[in-house]
């Protein structure tokens, strides 16, 4: 047993403290199953430990962890014959902090509608960004260029603008959501 081993373990646990919660919440958005998400996070940290065992370095541990976690979860979802990345019925109900149940329903409906109008790549970018990844990290995770990340994310907002701006009566939740925005 060397101090090097201890150092490395300490380093991995530090990474765990930093990112485990975010990784798990990210995994949960992909698969909507707490136990699979928890297992995935543990698996990813074990793989990381195997990877850095002989003094090897991983260039960006955060991006590495997110990339491997994403691939692992998507592969296991694929294996379970659940092909859709988004499970609409199980989206979080409380999309924002408003108290009024009617408005809550409306805005949850709207989120659902908006998210369903995004392409898988746009959604993937959005998810990673909302879990605190920087553009170049998102690019590493999805194997795309950083410039593409910015374009995809701006397309997300463009899509919302399109939905809210040009088709006001297309969906029951929109009027209410617009009101809440104005307030």
């Amino acid at each position, binding site marked *: 047993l060397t101090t090097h081993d201890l150092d490395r373990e300490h380093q991995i646990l530090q990474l765990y403290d930093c990112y*485990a919660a975010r990784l*798990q919440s990210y995994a949960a958005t992909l698969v909507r199953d707490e136990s699979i998400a*928890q297992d995935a996070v543990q698996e990813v940290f*074990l*793989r990381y430990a195997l990877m850095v065992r002989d003094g090897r370095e991983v260039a960006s541990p955060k991006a590495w962890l997110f990339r491997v976690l994403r691939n*692992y979860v998507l592969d296991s979802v694929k294996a379970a014959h659940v092909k859709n990345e988004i499970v609409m019925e199980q989206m979080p109900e409380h999309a924002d902090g408003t108290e009024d149940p009617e408005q809550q329903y409306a805005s949850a409906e709207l989120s659902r509608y908006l998210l369903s109008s995004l392409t898988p790549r746009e959604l993937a970018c959005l998810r990673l960004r*909302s879990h605190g990844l920087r553009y170049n990290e998102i690019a590493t995770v999805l194997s795309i260029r950083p410039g593409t990340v910015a374009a995809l994310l701006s397309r997300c907002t463009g899509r919302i603008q399109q939905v809210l701006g040009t088709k006001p009566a297309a969906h029951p939740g929109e009027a209410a959501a617009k009101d809440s925005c104005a307030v």
Partner: protein
Amino acid sequence: VPSESRKPRTAPVAFLRRALDRLHSTPSGHVNPATLLAYRDGELPEDEMQRIGKHLEHCAECRTQSELERWQMDRLAKSESEVPAPDSGQRRSELQSLLRSLRTSAPAPTRSLLALLTGRKAAANGDVQPSSNRYRKLLIVTILVFHVMLGFVAYAAWRFTGNPRWVRAFFGSAGDLFLMELAIAAFYLALEVRRGFSVGEPLYRGWYLITTAFACDVLGSIFGKLLATQPNPLWNFFLPEQLHQFGLFMGGPLEMLLLGGGLLSIVHAYHRAGIITFDLSTPELLLLASAMAYTLCANIQADAAIHSGMIWTLQDSMKVSLDPLLLVLLGAAMVLRRSVQNLGEKALARCWSAMVWAICLIFVGDMIHWATTYHLLPAQIGSIGWHVWFVSGTSYALACAFQLQAMEKTAECIGARQSHSAAAAG
């Protein structure tokens, strides 16, 4: 733990400036939405940040757009990230003990990694039947030794009697037959490996392509060699020249392309799983460098030969054009070998070692052929050198055999673990 600070990027060169400006702004002179978003997320280079900050001070339209984007993005992000993360204290101590066990015991891949590398069927319930032919590797090697000895007998007969027909007859009949046997063995074993993976698994596509490559090899050795050799006048009479060339194409470029596709697909799967490592050792790098040097030499010389009006057959050009592809194959096999070695998977490491050997030996065979063609080596050496093809073919078959062995080992290991836990539960 890495810091979250953003690295300042170097300022773009002046002449790129105008192009960049055009990229960042809409035709009407405003900042485009993607750049605005990147600005708000602090992802632009330092000078761009300042420039757009200044623009926003003056331009109300862009400011409104930016505010709108901020609201929309926050809203989307909020609806996505509001999954409560449960307390992970128990999980943390679990991980700690797992890390500690990793420190003391020999490194072993996790179960899900085993499932990735050797197929979910093997890792799920020990489904793969224990091998009925445990001696398949021994069998392959024994037949190889027999053929090589036969070849040397033919060679000795040539040296003693001075009649080269001995060697020609050997390579024309027994040799080609043996190459076909090896191709069939490799195809059969690869098919067995492919059966261990179900559709949609990360390694399925890779092994599918490798199996197809070996099927092409079988067809190639039948049409390109066995039916077209000189002491076989009957077959040669029936076999049209096109079919012969088709066989050469199947056993040459097509096989190597498919094999390359398979290996790269497996590299991709390893990369996705985060277990790839590119740190090759110095001997491996030297080997790659010398293969590269040979490829360059052979291609330059081929070019010169074509220009000087040398008669150039289809087979020759196939050989030369294949070398760069072989180089990629060699690199991929080396990386795969290094990656599984790193995981402590011995049988799998042997599988990719055999693959590395097979590809290396093709290079050696090509080199000998090339050297004898240009009279850099005496013809006798060339005829001994032909045995390299046998060893190369054997290595392909052995690679598949080792992968099968790894799959059986996983199945046994998981089966034993399951019966152990069942006994503990009982």
